[in-house]
């Protein structure tokens, strides 16, 4: 009868999708353990969030009305106290930038196991088995987790969002926040990736990745974009290298795009990149590696050298 505590995530007044995905993962786990599913929401307009989180299968929603935006010290303290109060065996949170800014601290504080970026979960009474990828998605592994409470972060968009109205009890949790222990303060937010081009508006994106090797080779992709009257975008390494501005970056930390056709050229398809383009109507991948993760979501593929295929493609349109 192991109970589960799932921690919701919100930002700038909006509950993030992963919160409802966490509920789905939590409901599945609770069915296996026969325990209760508790959901916690910390900071901000917790009452509104609690209504949105009240989905089928949730037993209790705990609200911590302290502060507005995410602060890792407040989250760490609140979650630690909630776990103690509920006696939760499993703590589920998002494998997001903020999730990874407090859940490792929670696990360390309890000296309990932590398993991150999980894409599948099952349990019997003894052991939690988590599925996760290694080597940039080239392999999947299963990992047995001994000891409770265990802290688990789940990858976004792996579980569907929870549907169906729930009948959870909503309880205000009076967390004792030690303000002297708060050593970080959030002063604001900044939008990046502005500028002249909005890649999310394009019908045809020609997107370039690490396979391009050298900055001067980008000319080839520019030429292709011109020939096709397409917009050029890229994966993260190209922006990290300073070869293209941040407003061209597709992915989790860049833009989410949904063009009619997305041509991925020399892009391996790391999960962070795929999160930004998997909603494209048609995905074409040009890559020498037939096992690259991008091939799992490509509708059409060319397993060949981009330096041979791209010039030939330009030729087709000139």
């Amino acid at each position, binding site marked *: 009868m192991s109970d589960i505590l799932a921690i919701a995530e919100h930002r700038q007044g909006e509950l993030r999708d992963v919160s409802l995905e966490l509920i789905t993962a939590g409901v599945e786990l609770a069915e296996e353990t026969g325990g209760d599913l508790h959901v916690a929401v910390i900071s901000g307009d917790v009452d509104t969030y609690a209504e949105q989180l009240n989905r089928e299968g949730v037993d209790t929603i705990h609200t911590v009305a302290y502060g507005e935006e995410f602060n*890792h010290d407040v989250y760490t303290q609140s979650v630690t106290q909630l776990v103690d109060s509920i006696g939760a065996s499993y703590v589920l949170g998002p494998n997001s*930038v903020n999730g990874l*800014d407090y859940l490792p601290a929670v696990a360390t504080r309890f000296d309990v196991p*932590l398993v991150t970026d999980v894409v599948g979960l099952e349990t019997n009474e003894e052991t939690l088995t988590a599925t996760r990828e*290694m*080597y940039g998605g080239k392999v999947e592994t299963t990992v*047995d987790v001994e000891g409770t409470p265990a802290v688990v972060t789940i990858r976004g968009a792996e579980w569907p969002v929870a549907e169906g109205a729930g009948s959870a009890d909503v309880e205000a949790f009076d967390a004792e926040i030690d303000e002297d222990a708060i050593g970080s303060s959030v002063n604001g937010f900044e939008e*990046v990736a502005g500028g002249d081009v909005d890649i999310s508006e394009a019908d045809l994106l020609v997107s370039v990745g690490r396979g391009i090797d050298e900055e001067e080779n980008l000319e080839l992709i520019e030429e292709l974009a011109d020939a096709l009257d397409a917009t050029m975008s890229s994966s993260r390494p190209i922006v990290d290298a300073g070869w293209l501005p941040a407003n061209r970056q597709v992915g989790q930390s860049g*833009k989410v795009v949904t063009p009619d*056709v997305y041509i991925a050229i020399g892009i391996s398809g790391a999960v962070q990149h795929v999160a930004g383009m998997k909603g494209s109507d048609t995905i074409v991948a040009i890559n020498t590696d037939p096992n690259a993760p991008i091939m799992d979501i490509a509708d059409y593929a060319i397993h060949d050298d981009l330096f041979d295929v791209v010039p030939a493609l330009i030729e087709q349109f000139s």
Partner: protein
Amino acid sequence: MKVLVPVKEVVTVDDAFEIDGTAIDERYLSADLNEWDDYAIEEAVQLQEDGVVDEVVTVTIGDEDTEQTIRQALAKGADRAIRVWDDALEDVDLLDVGAKVAILEAVVGAEEPDLVLTGVQSGDDSFGATGVALAEAVGTQWAAVVNQLELENGADVASVHRELEGGLEELTDIDLPAVLSIQTGINEPRYASLRGIRMAQRKELDHQTLADLGVEGDAVAGELELTSMYEPESESDTTVFEGSADDTAAQLAELLREKGVAQ
């Protein structure tokens, strides 16, 4: 001010590979400096060049073979290196976050750095959690996924940008000492110069065992057990264009015209 940079040697996997039990067959692996750590080293070295930091020390958990990777970090400008290895680590399949933290905690205790700069994650097992877990273990502040760092000489606060999802950055002040996990793109990691490579050969690279650090053997056994490894099933029904580059380009051109996105 002293900076400690945990540096990991990661393995990269060939395009085609075979799995042997719960590991990839060694024939298909090559060793490399973890990409994220490269940015952490660069950030530390730049702080030193700006006169904010006096000493940059790296720490690596790894056997003797990792010394080549450690020398890369030294060649890029780190002052000295610590390598932790022990027979007790030979048989550990998966060094989980708790085990890594137990070792790094002891190193932080001995070195007392003002700042620890880790990479956001490692390219192989990608837990993305060591930095924050370490901060909690040693009782300092932290920030995860930092893509901009401002640190004044002698300051007790670091101003950072944290890279959130969707092109948003969080502007945060962090009390020092602190552990910051460094994101790619924060700087442009340098290539080691020939002079740097030569100097690296003479820099101190100190090997420590768990006993040297006062870490109990069972602290590194870990709470996670790797039970299987397999290639993920592909769910795709990809149409593969076959033939020469001219053939495949022609097929793709036809598709693009069919979809009405190109003339």
